[in-house]
């Protein structure tokens, strides 16, 4: 995972609440064994017509939104299935952050593990971003800085967003969490010697 650098980016708005991970990437695409190419099928059922051609009315297909790097979405983004393919697809498309008033737990966790920032914003900030976009579709920019946990809105206002210290540390420094767990090995060995395994699956089949 790469370390985080502050950036300024244009954004697209998907003003739909409860966007579930089946919409972000439909299940029929989960037969892959890699993470490659998922950006192509992000929001597939909304983004493409039945014949496979791009749906011109879907936001990221519009010319003015080409190259956007931030997604602003309605409340409770990422609910449903735990598929990590959802953040992989968003990143594969080129998104670096998703802004919403609320994120589902597992999606939020999965995103942070991949360095895709799920940024929680207030309803007021959400409305501001929607209005700014309505006035100048695809042209307005926001700036994201993780070190100070701030998003600078198109009008220059800075808003603070919450993130757990550990996740922040990992994303900022490009540290992956598996390394941290592996380093807890002493404690783990102590734990395992004090607690007998609760099950044994060996020989079950």
């Amino acid at each position, binding site marked *: 995972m790469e370390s985080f650098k502050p950036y300024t980016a244009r954004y697209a708005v998907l003003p739909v609440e*409860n966007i579930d991970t*089946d919409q972000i990437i439909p299940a029929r695409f989960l037969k892959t064994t*890699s993470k490659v190419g998922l950006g192509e099928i992000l929001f597939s059922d909304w983004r493409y017509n039945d014949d496979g051609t791009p749906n011109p009315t879907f936001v990221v297909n519009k010319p003015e939104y080409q190259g956007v790097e931030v997604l602003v979405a309605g409340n409770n983004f990422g609910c449903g299935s735990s598929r*990590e393919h959802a953040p992989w697809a968003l990143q594969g498309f080129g998104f670096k952050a998703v802004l919403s008033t609320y994120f589902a737990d597992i999606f939020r966790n999965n995103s942070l593990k991949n360095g895709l920032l799920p940024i929680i914003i207030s309803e007021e900030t959400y409305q501001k971003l929607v209005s700014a976009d309505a006035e100048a579709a695809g042209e307005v920019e926001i700036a994201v800085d993780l070190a100070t946990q701030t998003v600078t809105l198109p009008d220059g206002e800075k808003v603070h967003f919450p993130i757990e210290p550990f996740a922040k540390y990992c994303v900022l420094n490009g540290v992956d969490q598996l390394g941290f767990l592996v380093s807890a090995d002493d404690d783990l060995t102590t734990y395992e010697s004090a607690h007998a395994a*609760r*099950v044994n699956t*060996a020989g079950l*089949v």
Partner: protein
Amino acid sequence: MTTAPQTLFEKIWNRHIVRPETSETPAVLYVDLHLVHEVTSPQAFTELRERGLKVRRPSQTVATMDHSTPTTPRGRDGIIPVPDVQAQAQLTQLETNCRDFGIPLFALGTENQGIVHVIGPEQGLTQPGMTIVCGDSHTSTHGAFGALAFGIGTSEVGHVLATQCLLQSRPKTMEVRINGTLRPGVGAKDIILAIIAQIGIGGGTGYVFEYTGSAIRGLSMEERMTVCNMSIEGGARAGLIAPDQVTFEYIKGRPRAPQGAAWDAAIADWQTLVTDHGAVYDATIELDADVLAPMITYGTNPGMGIPITGTIPTRNDMTDEQSKAGLEKALKYMDLSEGQSLIGKAVDVVFIGSCTNSRITDLRQAASLMVGRTVNPKVRVMVVPGSAQVKKQAEAEGLDKIFVAAGAEWREAGCSMCIAMNGDQLKPGQYAVSTSNRNFEGRQGKGGRTFLASPLTAAATAISGVISDPRDIR
């Protein structure tokens, strides 16, 4: 020394702390049992290979094939053919991964294969007080045994494979108290659909539910699993039910249940796994089972549910603009109207299956209505058992004959049309009453429209061909 009263969740959580949470880092939590399936694991095994890591505890891990597997009949050779090349490649990859890393695998066509959340309990692997994870959000199912069980992403699957641990911040607790007694024709699925309709699909985010109350105590283990299964549809990653005699009887004698003296010791321990008198939950909600009717969803998320005797809400019932827009979008997709009643609405497909409702008691319920009747010839009715063992049991009881005689399809075990990865799917525009757990746009096939309901409601609908209240079938 007296300890402060604890909730069931706190007791399980505390037992599994390898390294406590600090202001800087989450807790390192030990995982007793890790369940693996073909869809969410390949990239995790790749990660292990790239880093030269082993699976730390293969004997606390078990894998199955369920999501992309066909449920079509076996060939003459007894083998279930997999026509989808990509699905076959994914299954082969799981086989390779399990062989290379020493993980037991219930492969397609073998006698214990099935949906991951059906086989854990079936094998006696799921036990009270354990921590159980799987790269699958419906891992909450196992909470029915008083185990802390939740879904994780693929990165975390890698963490658990390599270290048998997870980094976790402690969630909050919510008591979900179901008072009273269920009326005939109303079941576990109706309880959970009613809860989600009440709190909304984000209502439980950040919480672990503990289901309590007389109506929960009255449920069988299978029914408790149905309730806990859909905790995630309410936003909660886990749902718990304190173990009791019903739990112990279910586990006793199963392949990996404790035996002899170990059994007695286990029972003594499991009996302590209750929320202490005076322990405090972060939130509590209540529901009255006495007034509950069969529930059905009308929209495109599981929170959009109504009593089957009710009507679809109107824009005016919604308090904010986002919800109004959400209702409109859902009804457009479903081609339904505000204020409409669903009873009498014609459907194309009835699906009875999924980790929510594919266990033996679910099949018995569906069969109880279908026996001696035929399904409406306009409706395709699929009955998909949750595991090869459930299938065997159902056949021993003659349920398969009831379904087939009624005109339904009796399939091999798997996730099937719950997720529509294996070819079992709705055609665009088709309506289905489904006993599964998600009615998202396209979940059961691109353009397909799903009404979530109980096995009884599904069976009643199969018979009449239109959405029907099971209490009206005589």
